[in-house]
């Protein structure tokens, strides 16, 4: 038997580890017996292969998971402009532009901090917003109820609106109140004034609109 080259050993190990060749094959058995290093390498890598098999199996199982009946409503689909990868070249003016962008972001943030109750609603996610496509009106008191109303620049028949009221001290992840899903196509939300009074003073209304697959979010101070 000719002694296998390093590449032959690599390929044999690959075949054995991947289960494409059996260690009981007499030729393989002879090779392994003649090469304890190869045998040790095989034994050392087998647990890793088992881990990878388990990870692959988990992924396939979860991918094939049937749609649960209690899946609830479809979630809004967020798709900001996809990024096209390009070869990176650093032009001389890049640092200047980056510095200017930082200043602008800082200013926008500072303005937002200073005036959270802006009448038109404050954009909270610059990556998904374009100007004035979703406007929040000032809340109105009608017959002991507070009416929140918003509008879109264009009338979109399949528009959906998700609305929550949250306390900034707690965060948007844990809203105080979520508008019932049955109302998702409506552009108003009416809540008893007595209930609104119980919300923390800094509470904010956040509306996420899905318009023809595009998502816009705006928010404003509740009071």
């Amino acid at each position, binding site marked *: 038997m000719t002694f296998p080259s390093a*590449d032959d050993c*690599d*390929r044999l*190990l*690959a*075949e054995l*580890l*991947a289960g*494409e060749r059996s260690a009981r094959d007499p030729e393989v058995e002879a090779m392994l017996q003649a090469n304890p290093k190869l045998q040790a390498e095989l034994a*050392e*890598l087998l647990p*890793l*292969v088992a*881990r*990878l*098999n388990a*990870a*692959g199996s*988990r*992924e*396939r199982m*979860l*991918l094939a*998971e049937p*749609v*649960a009946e209690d*899946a*609830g409503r*479809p*979630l*809004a*689909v*967020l*798709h*900001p*402009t*996809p*990024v*096209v*990868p390009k070869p990176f070249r650093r032009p001389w003016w890049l640092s200047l532009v980056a510095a200017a962008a930082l200043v602008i972001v800082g200013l926008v943030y500072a303005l937002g901090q200073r005036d959270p109750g802006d009448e038109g609603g404050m954009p909270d996610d610059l*990556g998904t917003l374009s100007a004035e496509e979703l406007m929040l009106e000032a809340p109105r008191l009608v017959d002991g109820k507070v009416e929140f109303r918003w509008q879109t620049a264009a009338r979109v028949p399949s528009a959906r609106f998700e609305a929550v009221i949250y306390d900034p001290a707690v965060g948007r*992840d*844990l*809203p105080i109140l*979520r508008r019932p899903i049955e109302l998702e196509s409506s552009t108003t939300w009416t809540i008893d004034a007595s209930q609104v009074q119980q919300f923390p003073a800094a509470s904010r209304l956040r509306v996420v609109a899905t318009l023809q*697959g595009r998502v816009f979010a705006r928010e404003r101070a509740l009071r």
Partner: protein
Amino acid sequence: MGAHPGPQAAHAADLALARAAVARDDHAVATLTQRLSCVARFVRAANQNFGGALRREDLEDVTQEALGTIWRRLGDFRGEASLETWAFRIADFSVRNATRRHLLRQSVSVDAVAEPAEDGCADKLAEIEALEGAMAALTPDESVVIRLKHYEELTFDQIGKTLGQSPNTIKTRYYRALASLRNKLCPPSDS
């Protein structure tokens, strides 16, 4: 020795769809939006896999986060797996991040000293994170072979066809990728 054909994206139609969506083709964007409705299901399934640590509201946020990442990174899609599989990996990653944050919050919360329902969740998360972390540290050439072998269950011949290389080259790459992965998971000691 015969020349091997160039790489043929295993999911060429998906790749074309992704590229069209990147170019803002309306039909492609609409088709992709529909295809990506599976992400919410992936998020729920991945959460269940970690013992259901996240609540329904958290899952909605995680889904949005995953969808945002998917759309932003659409230009990186190379068609080596189906769009759904690629999207699943991003969704799974988002769930892992959210679960880790959740467990961290719990560990500092006085009210939640012990949550038996989530026993084992941290261990499972750590196990998957370790493996995925090591996979992410591989070169793209290494990780693609491992994924195609163990996650897509392709043979060396099939991987060779997908990547436009001979099966023997793929076998060598596979073994070296495994050895590299082992070293990342258990770095050899200096002694």
